[in-house]
């Protein structure tokens, strides 16, 4: 009940703020432009691709790279979006209103998280719509596209959980965003290890985000990768809940 009330309140506030809309518009405009360039390159390469026995198709050359680009944008977008979640409430004094109502920390964290996640998933749906609009004119690998979309959704959910956790530790939203960005980049830095796994230890390789995102972008859905994102989300949200639960003691 309290979770639903917070979710509805957060969604309402999110929809009324201008900057999430501006961010969404900028992301879609950038990705739309890049899709046009990718489609142009794909059309130019048709003759050469036709000679290859297992040539990459529209999904490999346009759709999945577009989603991969969105993943890179999300590294910056999600901390910007999540920084207000708890730090902004704390700074504005409205967190006291929520605490004075005896709302459990779990409900406050989950309500805010789910509202932001819903907004990000709507943005992801609009991004996926870009290649889907060309589906009647081309051949889409639906399985690969679905796996890549799942991968990006899990990435967004993971990054958002990290962002909310960072937001729970400060009353300064920019500091929360910087902290979330630093952590995100640390997790993303595994991209080098992902490309050269022999250079990284098994633990470092396993905790890096790209290690688990790349298989999904290639169309391989493994329980190992799903478990990784599940653990990341659960761990980050638990940290946020624990910190907020101590708000009454810490002040």
């Amino acid at each position: 009940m309290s979770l639903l009330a917070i979710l509805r309140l957060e969604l309402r506030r999110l929809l009324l703020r201008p900057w999430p809309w501006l961010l969404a518009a900028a992301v879609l405009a950038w990705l739309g432009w890049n899709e046009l360039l990718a489609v142009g390159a794909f059309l130019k390469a048709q003759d050469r691709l036709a000679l290859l026995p297992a040539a990459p198709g529209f999904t490999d050359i346009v759709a999945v790279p577009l989603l991969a680009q969105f993943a890179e944008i999300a590294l910056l977008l999600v901390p910007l979006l999540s920084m207000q979640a708890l730090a902004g409430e704390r700074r504005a004094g409205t967190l006291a209103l929520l605490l004075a109502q005896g709302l459990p920390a779990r409900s406050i964290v989950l309500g805010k998280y789910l509202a932001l996640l819903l907004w990000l998933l709507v943005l992801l749906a609009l991004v996926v719509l870009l290649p889907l609009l060309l589906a009647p004119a081309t051949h889409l690998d639906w399985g690969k596209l679905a796996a890549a979309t799942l991968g990006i959704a899990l990435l967004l959910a993971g990054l958002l959980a990290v962002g909310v956790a960072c937001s729970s530790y400060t009353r300064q939203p920019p500091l929360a965003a910087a902290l979330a960005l630093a952590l995100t980049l640390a997790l993303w830095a595994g991209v080098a290890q992902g490309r050269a796994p022999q250079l990284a230890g098994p633990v470092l390789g396993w905790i890096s985000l790209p290690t688990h995102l790349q298989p999904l972008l290639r169309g391989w859905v493994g329980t190992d990768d799903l478990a990784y994102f599940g653990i990341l989300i659960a761990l980050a949200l638990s940290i946020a809940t624990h910190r907020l639960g101590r708000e009454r003691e810490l002040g």
Partner: protein
Amino acid sequence: MSSLPPRLALHAVSRRRAGRLVLEPTTLQLAAGDVLGLLGVNGAGKSTTLMLMAGVLAPSHGRVELNGADLAEWPQRARRHIGYLPEHAPLWPELTVREQLDAHGALRGLRGAALHVPRDTLLQRLDLAPLARRLCAQLSLGQRQRVGLACALLHQPDVLILDEPGTGLDPVQTENLRTLLRERAAAGAAIVLSTHLLTEVTALCTRAVILHQGELRHDAPLHTGAAAWRVTLGAKQAESARTVLSALSAAIEIEDAQHVLVRLHHDADVALLARTLVGAKLALLGLEPASPPLARVFMDIASGRVERAA
């Protein structure tokens, strides 16, 4: 004697911040209908005390009880039973005034008529109806304060905790607020309000508490609209005075054969008291306030003229 637990009770509640004691062990009780004025200079610990009462902060030691239940064990009870207005009335700026009230109601589990009826009543009572569709970000200080009050009053709580509720209100709105709070107290709510204004306390409160440097230094009832006077009469005239003064709207207490303590109610004044005694041919040898006025007590404590309790 009533068996009902106090609406709100602080049992040796203290609070540390960064290793420093910002509120020393404090014990207070509020019964239904009590209106407690919390006074103190800046940094005295008023807001910390209110946050502890509202469940926003947890005590470092001691416990806060709400209707007999430990607030730390049952924080969800605050949802229905406590209305809290923090300092500066924080609001969600993206929402309109009506949405703000709806959000507060929904968070407290109010729906349908249980939400809409008190919401519309409060919008009218606090003169917010013309602002119902205005964004909270666009409100003035006084308007924000009234919206914050409406949010605190929406669910008709048993305990109202108000931090500087009169900030930014004009005299008409201040009187309106007093009327509203008196009605809530008459309906059985216990009210705590923190303020810098002594007039606010004397006009509204039944009891005043003064905090200084995190310590409770004064806790005494106030006789709203009344004053206590010590009357000195001729030898053995105290009993006669009691008979004479029984016609007055006052509480009379004989201290000894020559001294009477008279607490005047709002429809009697000291001039009438003196006229009645002199008219009855009693020897009026002295007439002085029985207790120092709140302003003097406050100034004595704030200036350090009153030593802290051992």
